[in-house]
């Protein structure tokens, strides 16, 4: 009786341990032909259920291979040639432990595989994908002994990881020339229309920078302490923003600032020219051409916006709504009721913006 009870207890314990080893993990895609998760750590003898969700623009599959077999499986998959599509690009071989079907964009599939102790690669075996689109399942009781992800040779794109790492340390420009201010960078920026132009200005402590919106032809915000970081924008398909390096001290709240006579402004961007590397923007508003050049204010945070205006018979108005912590100083006219009125024929105007 006691012996029978002991056996029953042992069986129950075993079942319990067994049940704890069923694991479901969802993997999806990320930019640059990558799986979003590249390293999975589970206990040995886990029954692993992998759900593959394809958020990419092209079809992929997911194949789990025996340890050290990824390249061989990839090569055999490539050798399928014309037969590949019908076989979901999965070769029939013992090195393939489990696989999904071909997963079209937006679709999903799953597989179940039991992994004993070891490193099990998973890979997309579509032609040409397997060299970059892969990861690894580590089945181990000693996760602390796994290699550092940055040096793990079972993970893809070590060069890019190194590139990012180097960037973080050396502030490399990412170009075949060093960053030289003034600098211009057209890109996607937050809180700006999609046609954003980031401009970095030289100065102390990283200088100052601003964003000009070429779609609405206006300065959007300014910051000090640096320029921009393109790491996220460049790594991937281009959806992520270029980010500000520094502290934003000014945000425009006026919309397009100019009025010609009493007309509602209709603007058109015409590009820019470089004057000693400073961009001078050119835009039309109701047929009047305005050129705008922005420099850093000497002696502290702030900008000097200089406008050159083509001849016009109508008076001009520049809107500059008061903001806490910001002071405006026009070169002509007076700031009254949050605007500066300029007489017809005005050709030059500047506005100095500074922090108090």
């Amino acid at each position: 009786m006691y012996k029978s009870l002991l056996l029953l207890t042992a069986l129950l314990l075993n079942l319990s341990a067994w049940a704890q080893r069923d694991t479901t993990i969802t993997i999806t895609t990320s930019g640059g032909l990558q799986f979003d998760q590249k390293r999975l750590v589970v206990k040995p003898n886990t029954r692993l259920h992998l759900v593959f969700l394809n958020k990419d623009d092209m079809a992929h599959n997911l194949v789990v291979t025996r340890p050290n077999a990824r390249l061989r499986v990839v090569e055999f998959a490539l050798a399928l040639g014309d037969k590949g599509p019908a076989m979901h690009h999965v070769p029939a071989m013992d090195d393939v432990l489990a696989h999904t079907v071909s997963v079209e964009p937006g679709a999903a599939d799953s597989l179940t595989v039991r992994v004993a102790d070891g490193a099990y690669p998973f890979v997309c075996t579509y032609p040409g994908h397997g060299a970059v689109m892969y990861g690894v399942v580590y089945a181990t009781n000693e996760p602390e002994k796994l290699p550092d992800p940055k040096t793990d040779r079972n993970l893809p794109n070590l060069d890019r990881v190194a590139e990012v790492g180097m960037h973080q340390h050396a502030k490399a420009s990412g170009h075949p020339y060093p960053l030289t201010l003034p600098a211009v960078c057209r890109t996607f920026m937050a809180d700006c229309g999609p046609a954003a132009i980031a401009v970095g200005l030289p100065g102390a402590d990283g200088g100052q920078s601003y964003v000009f919106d070429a779609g609405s032809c206006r300065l959007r915000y300014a910051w000090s302490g640096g320029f921009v970081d393109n790491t996220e924008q460049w790594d991937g398909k281009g959806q992520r923003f270029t980010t500000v390096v520094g502290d934003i001290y000014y945000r425009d709240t006026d919309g397009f600032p100019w009025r010609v006579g009493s007309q509602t402004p209709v603007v058109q961007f015409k590009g820019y020219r470089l004057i000693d590397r400073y961009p001078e923007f050119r835009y039309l508003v109701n047929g009047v051409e305005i050129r705008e050049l922005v420099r850093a204010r000497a002696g502290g945070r702030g900008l000097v916006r200089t406008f050159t205006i083509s001849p016009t018979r109508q008076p001009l108005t520049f809107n500059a709504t008061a903001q806490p912590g910001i002071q405006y100083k026009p070169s002509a006219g007076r700031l009254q009721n949050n605007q500066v009125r300029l007489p017809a024929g005005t050709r030059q105007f500047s506005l100095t913006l500074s922090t108090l």
Partner: protein
Amino acid sequence: MLLTLLASLCFWAAPTDTISDYYTIETIPTPAGLTVETGGLTFLPDGRLAACFHRGEVMLYNPKTKTWKLFAEGLHDPLGILAVSNRELLVMQRPELTRLTDTNGDGVADTYETVADQFGMSGNYHEFAFGPVRDSKGNLYISLNTASNGAGIRDELRGQYDSLGRPGRMYACVPYRGWVMQITPNGKVKPYASGFRSPNGLGIDAQGRLLVTDNQGDWLGTSKLYNVEEGKFYGHPTSLVWRPGFPDIDPLTLSPQTLDSMRTVESIAFPHEIMAHSPTQMVVDNSGGKFGPFAGQTFVGEMDFPHLLRVLPDMVDGQMQGACVPFFAKGGSNGTPLRIGNNRLAFSPDGSLWLGQTDHGWLGDRGLQRIRYTGGTPLDILAMTLTPTGFDLTFTQPVDEATARQLANYQVRSYYYEYHRAYGSPQKDVQTVPVTAVQLSPDRRTVSLTLSQLRPKRIYELHLAKLTAGSKQLMNSVICYTLNRLRTPAVGRAN
């Protein structure tokens, strides 16, 4: 006797030449620190190369001195470039077509002038902008990618938003996404043609036709080449929202049959897996024979395969259809291999073909290579034309009669791709089509095949095994003809 046997053995040895016996690949060194994701290539009148790259650089390369110089920087994902003069370039970047001019002659651009930005931007990453190419009248053409539902749109857009264009795997919720635009010599910007999905390549062929490639996906069963004409709709529905006079509805609510009746089909299809995954830019061999036997022909790049494509147009009832065949497939082991990711192509004044590679976000490679013709004539297909009963194949040189006359050396499959909302299409109604007769022209350069059946709106995939010309083997044994229209016998012509 021994000599006779030896000669016999030599005669029957299989030809082993490859394309690498006639062309060589050279990888071009690029500046340290440059991420060589190529968006555009063009040659200046003085022979220098101008190239633009994903991170916004425009650089000039002097092939004689092998030196690089920065011409412009800070552009947003430039994907096309066209030389106007030695000091003036047109560059297509995400937000606009820009004219870069070096006004003071120091070799660096001083003005970045907006030429065309009259199109919408939602900020979705898939809204690439391609081009420009210029026709003989001086019109410029650009193309605008649709957005992808793999990501959203920004809080702020440029241009009008239309929610009717928002649904779909690929969508056009801001103006002229999925369109080809024309910019006239006096700077007027016109919507020109609609219905594109990812029109990564534009080109003007030797006959002055505007050609645009598009990539397999929703509504494209396979990748295609279009002969683009003004006012036409090429099949991807979402851009119809921006067509003047289009009713105020979501185009995706129309049935595929209705949309099919509205569209102009492709001139040449690139069967998926066989020819291409992602075709890129077209370029015409304008080298006058310095690039081998293909003068005047159109080459197309491809992202996923280490080969290019050559297209062989055929005019039937005044409409372009025709064939495509790989180029530089199965190169030999001589020297440097051709890489994948061939996004941009340009012929150099010396007749070599320069390739700009990219992999940004997708499959591909990085760098610049060039293909140089080294001499000799590869045995390849120069033309494939439809006859009332089959096809005529013209080769670069006379073929051996023994192999050319064997019916078994010609295998034909025929199928079509479905026009539907789903991503891509399997080959439908695949059939084997017997070749019933072969005729060889007196000069042995043209083989006339009679097929048991020809049907319109299908692709004919022809496999030619074992054709030889003395010691030369056929460089590419598969060619695909897109048969939109049958050619009817001319009235009164003797059969």
